[in-house]
């Protein structure tokens, strides 16, 4: 069961990838969907066995490579964190597989799409089940590659190609940090296995790493590299630019990769490395700072976007910011709780957006929508549930995790002297306001406002097939109930699930204090989201872009991050590559001192020497005598002066 949960997605990939030509649309959809569904049931069993029965499983498959003290095995660790991730990944993935059957019903390359979805699931499972850093890196890079293939699924579109390249390369920037972390782990701990690293971690608390003349605390550097990996994969501020562009892929891809699975890999990494991060207050501060800034920034950027999927993408970015600063506040299980909840309601939002897009023949601009409520009642209902869950409406899924995160940063605000807790608190609460604002703006534009879509399209709008609405209903049920059902499991009072997996310093724990906050502070997020709702309700009747023209323009352009990057980073690097390394060094210096220049010099010299052979007998006699003289005089001369004479002779 434990091995098969890894192998089944791979098998599904091979069946629909290599056999797609023979199986066709129905065969590949049947096989891959049922395989992943089977995987989902297996992961439920694993969840039961590992978490409810409390028996973590460690399986060793085979040695991968070993050299001296470097020993890396193919082995799998199923602890409470992994089994939760398994359930999240497999449930979302199986629903997305099922949804894709309806969504890509007219696509000619459907088996290929199914193969990509399955290989993506496979790599994600590799990532979460790995027991050492190298095997985890296999999954880490694998999801990057799979995301490239999926974003680039409609490969004939230029923008899809560009977005896929951007996603892959931006991820690689973070992956570089992670690979440095792997090397550093081997350098210091001499091991790459989680179990060894985590048990050794307390011994290295004051360990220093020297680099040239500088000396750094080991945990700060290690945490910094892990943080780089996490911001790349989880699209945090700085490397977030790939996520909105990755919406070029088909909508089920966005739901799988950019809501529930790939972007959570960075958060998963941080949660997994809690025994390391806890020792570095620097890293925790970094996580708080970047996480809260991302939560605020992405939510703010989302409010004036006009692309249906990009709004949700920015919302993902913002929610990942919450998860990250929750990690920074040392509440890893809460972060995982939010990850789980977010996977459900964000997959729901993406798939519902896909349902809208599918119903109106692939129009994504919300300004050309409106008044879809009568024709898409089911999509509207689930969209509303998803938005309310996202906004943290009481007793829906988002409420249980997001409000708890905000309460904990309220407590943290009182303790922290560096104002980091305050930063998290202010940014987090403002992000709640903007989250509700863009969620309801989206709903107004799509379902309530007078329609802007052409009559020929508007009259034909109807709900799609069962393949589309069944996943929506299931996810809507998940978005309503998962938070309530999971609360005691994840963040309940003294829950024993995380004892063997996560490590939290007891002076960083604020679960108890957060339960006894003043009522006003507990109401604060709800009040903020209510204000956000009213703002969007009233401003929707006006033209917002006229009220805040400059601001809306600035925000709509994503705060000019992309133009900043392309102007000051990407273009100078490309320019450096062309002008300096290619033209000056490669084609210039090296070729001139190497083959090209040599081939230019030799003929010149050869023709000069050729001139000596003039055909005149007297010249030959002269040279002959001269050579004789030189030869005999060489007995009396040192070698250097002889060489000098010879050189002199050739240069004449």
């Amino acid at each position, binding site marked *: 069961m434990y091995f098969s949960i890894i192998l089944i997605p791979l098998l599904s990939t091979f069946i629909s990838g290599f056999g797609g030509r023979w199986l066709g649309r129905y065969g590949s959809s049947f096989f891959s969907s049922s395989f992943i569904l089977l995987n989902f049931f297996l992961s439920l069993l694993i969840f039961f066995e590992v978490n409810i029965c409390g028996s973590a499983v460690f399986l060793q498959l085979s040695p991968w490579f070993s050299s001296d003290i470097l020993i890396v095995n193919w082995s799998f660790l199923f602890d409470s964190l992994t089994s939760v991730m398994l359930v999240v990944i497999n449930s979302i993935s199986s629903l997305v597989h099922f949804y894709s059957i309806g969504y890509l019903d007219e696509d000619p390359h459907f088996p290929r799409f199914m193969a990509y979805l399955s290989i993506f699931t496979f790599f994600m499972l590799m990532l979460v089940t790995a027991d050492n850093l190298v095997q985890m890196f296999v999954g880490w890079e694998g999801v990057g590659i799979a995301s490239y293939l999926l974003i680039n699924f409609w490969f004939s579109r230029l923008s899809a190609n560009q977005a896929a390249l951007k996603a892959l390369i931006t991820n690689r920037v973070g992956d570089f940090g992670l690979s440095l972390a792997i090397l550093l782990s081997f350098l210091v701990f001499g091991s790459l296995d989680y179990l060894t690293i985590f048990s050794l971690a307390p011994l290295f608390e004051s360990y220093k790493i020297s680099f040239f003349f500088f000396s750094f605390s080991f945990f700060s550097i290690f945490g910094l590299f892990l943080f780089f990996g996490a911001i790349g994969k989880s699209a945090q501020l700085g490397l977030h630019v790939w996520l909105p562009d990755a919406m070029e892929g088909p909508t089920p891809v966005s739901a799988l990769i950019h809501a529930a699975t790939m972007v959570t890999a960075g958060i998963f990494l941080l949660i997994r490395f809690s025994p390391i991060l806890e020792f570095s207050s620097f890293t925790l501060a970094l996580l708080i700072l970047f996480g809260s800034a991302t939560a605020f920034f992405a939510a703010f950027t989302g409010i004036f976007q006009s692309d249906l999927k990009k709004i949700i993408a920015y919302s993902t970015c913002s929610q990942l910011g919450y998860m990250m600063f929750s990690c920074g506040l040392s509440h890893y299980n809460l972060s995982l709780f939010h990850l789980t909840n977010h996977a459900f309601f964000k997959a729901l939002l993406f798939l519902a957006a896909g349902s809208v897009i599918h119903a109106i023949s692939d129009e994504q601009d919300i300004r050309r929508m409106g008044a879809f409520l009568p024709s898409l009642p089911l999509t509207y209902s689930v969209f509303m549930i998803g938005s309310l869950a996202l906004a943290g409406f009481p007793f829906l899924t988002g409420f249980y995790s997001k409000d708890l995160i905000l309460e904990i940063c309220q407590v943290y605000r009182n303790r922290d002297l560096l104002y980091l807790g305050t930063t998290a608190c202010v940014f987090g609460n403002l992000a709640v306001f903007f989250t509700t604002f863009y969620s309801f703006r989206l709903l107004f534009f799509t379902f309530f406002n007078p329609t802007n879509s052409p009559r020929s399209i508007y009259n034909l709008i109807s709900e799609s097939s069962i393949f589309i609405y069944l996943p929506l209903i299931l996810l809507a049920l998940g978005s309503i109930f998962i938070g309530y059902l999971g609360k005691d499991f994840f963040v309940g009072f003294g829950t024993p699930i995380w004892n063997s997996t996560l490590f939290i310093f007891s002076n960083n724990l604020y679960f108890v204090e957060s339960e006894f906050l003043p009522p006003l502070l507990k109401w604060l997020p709800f009040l903020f989201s209510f204000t956000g709702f009213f703002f969007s309700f009233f401003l929707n009747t006006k033209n917002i872009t006229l009220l805040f023209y400059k601001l809306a323009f600035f925000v709509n352009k994503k705060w000019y991050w992309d133009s900043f990057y392309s102007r000051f980073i990407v273009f100078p690097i490309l320019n450096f590559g062309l002008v300096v390394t290619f033209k000056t060094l490669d084609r210039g210096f090296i070729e001139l001192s190497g083959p090209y220049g040599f081939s230019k010099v030799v003929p010149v010299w050869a023709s000069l020497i*050729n*001139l*000596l*052979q*003039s*055909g*005149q*007998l*007297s*010249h030959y*006699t*002269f040279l002959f*005598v001269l050579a004789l003289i030189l030869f005999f005089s060489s007995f009396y001369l040192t070698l250097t002066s002889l060489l000098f004479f010879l050189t002199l002779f050739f240069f004449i």
Partner: protein
Amino acid sequence: MLNFYTSIITTFFCLFLVSLLGMFLNKKNILIMLMSLEMLFLSASSFFIFSSIYLDDITGQIFAILILTVAASESAIGLAILVIYYRIRSTISVELMDLMKG
């Protein structure tokens, strides 16, 4: 003040140098070249003879006779080549013998 032996050696050496210079300073006539070559042989064989007398050894004189023979046969062959060359080119100017230039 040079002594007797040195002055004789110098004389022969000067003869050698003159003939060597005659080999490559002359640009017109190949006959002069051949004559210089003969003078070269002459100076060498004179050197041998003087050395054999000086060292009281017969080998030098034997060499001189051998050189005489070789020089005679060599100039015979050289003149024969010269005649053939003249028959073909109708000139014996050294300057124009540059068909083999590189």
